[in-house]
């Protein structure tokens, strides 16, 4: 099975719009790995087949009947997660367990907390693996890994040879969990100063994990000089550019209608360009496969 991750560094460049369009164009399993703020379901309307609890991290719990308030746990906790009156601050606690071993009265234990849910679903285009991290919960990297495992399992069961992953913004833990071991990464860039800066860091991340990079520019006509800068940067660094998508108010109209742009406006310039991008990527990915 081949895997492609759509990422961006900078948020809001159009990852989800593009991933949803790909899902409408080819047979694949889609995985929404932006587990903090997942949006793909609003375009693909998945029917949930299976829901599972996600136990991502642990939390220290103090048995107040045993605690004498000696404060050793507070002294040893490096996350400042024990308050002055010896209570656990759930936002600061990283579930490391140091307090459980320093407590002379064995009054502290680690408990599992339900940090979210994973879902396996069916959309009108195919199968989807997604999740939702509960608000204020941590360990999104681990949840991303679960979403990818579910996608892989689905793909194998249904004999589908491609997974497309909608990645989170940034370059930190959930993004790393979304790109490790995939065949290719499509970086959706925006022709702005911030967009260029963030694109470079996203490409560095793909290089760091040895993932084949592709770049497309979204809303390229907002600033054509910057689009050219992105293209020449990619040429100099031997990164394949796969297309430039024009700005169109139809993209947010499609979003309001809860549809992919492919479905909402099949003959639009945006749709045509995304189709070209998809053809290029699938050709490049199968070429890479045959080289292996």
């Amino acid at each position: 099975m081949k895997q492609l991750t759509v990422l961006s560094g900078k948020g809001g460049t159009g990852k989800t719009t593009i991933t949803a369009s790909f899902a409408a164009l080819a047979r694949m399993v889609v995985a929404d790995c932006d587990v903090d703020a997942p949006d793909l379901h609003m375009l693909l309307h998945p029917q949930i087949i299976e829901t599972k609890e996600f136990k991502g991290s642990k939390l220290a719990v103090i048995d107040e009947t045993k605690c004498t308030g000696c404060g050793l746990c507070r002294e040893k906790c490096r996350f400042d997660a024990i308050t002055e009156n010896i209570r656990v601050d759930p936002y600061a606690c990283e579930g490391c367990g140091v307090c459980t071993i320093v407590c002379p009265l064995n009054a502290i234990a680690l408990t599992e907390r339900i940090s979210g849910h994973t879902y396996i679903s069916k959309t009108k285009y195919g199968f989807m693996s997604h999740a939702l991290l509960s608000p204020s919960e941590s360990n999104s990297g681990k949840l991303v890994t679960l979403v990818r495992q579910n996608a892989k399992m689905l793909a194998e069961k249904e004999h589908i040879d491609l997974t497309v992953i909608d990645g989170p913004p940034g370059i930190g833990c959930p993004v790393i969990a979304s790109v490790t071991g995939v065949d290719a990464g499509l970086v959706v860039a925006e022709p702005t100063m911030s967009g260029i800066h963030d694109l470079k860091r996203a490409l560095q991340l793909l290089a760091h994990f040895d993932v084949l990079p592709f770049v497309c520019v979204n809303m390229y006509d907002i600033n054509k000089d910057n689009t050219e800068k992105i293209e020449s940067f990619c040429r100099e660094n031997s990164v394949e550019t796969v297309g430039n998508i024009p700005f169109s108010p139809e993209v947010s109209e499609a979003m309001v209608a809860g549809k992919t742009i492919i479905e909402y406006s099949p003959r639009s310039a945006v749709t045509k360009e995304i189709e070209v991008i998809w053809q290029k990527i699938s050709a490049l990915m199968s070429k890479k496969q045959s080289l292996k």
Partner: protein
Amino acid sequence: MIISIASGKGGTGKTSVAVNMALSIENVQFLDCDVEEPNAYLFLNPKTNETRPVTVSVPFVNEKMCDHCGKCADFCQYNALFAGAEKILVFPELCHSCGGCLLICPKKAMIEGKHKIGTLLRGSAGDLELVYGELEVGEPMAVPVIREVKRHIKSGKNVILDSPPGTSCPVIQTVCGSDFCVLVTEPTPFGLHDLKIIVQVLENMKIPLGVIVNRAGIGDRKIYEYCKEKTIPILLEIPYQRRIAELYSRGIPFSLEMPEWKTRFQTLFNSVAELVGK
């Protein structure tokens, strides 16, 4: 007063709002807490005064004392230690620096050393002081870098914290301790969906909040209905204008070229101050 600027959804205009507000008021300390993709300095063009590494403590094994009992690896909640028959392997990028392995090792064979995960930069642009962090590419943990940036908060300043997108640990680390959180959203289904999640996070944390609707005019009216229903104040609307988008694309804070916006950002700051009661 400490004001954080967050959003849930990425690319809604956090940095743009934070920078324009910072440039419209006085006595500002600007902390860019989006250490994965720091962008504020691109708009502020600061003179860099200080650059230094951000390190975290990670364990090293003193092989002479280690008998490979594996208690450290059993204890570690983050799988940062692996006990082989002959050797304990350390994965520094997974370590949360809790120090538990040092405490649990019966042979006192664990030593702490430093591992670089990012860089802290301090600079100034006119009277404005800028502090920001940059996570090393390939390092997963942004939180310790954010913590380091926030260590520089000065009391008596108007502190503006530019948050990363999302709703999990890096965002929580950024907004905790804020007097107020300004949420920048766009009036689309994605904007609203992610706004609802971040509002819930902030309500759990008991941080007062208000909303700025950016790119007003696109999408639909559901954001307004939601805010009305939840009695969340809409502090400002920034219309979708080609000029604003173009200035942004060139790295120019739009209030510098469109001075009427400077007054609007001042008013925004004053209304936040009033809501906070400072």
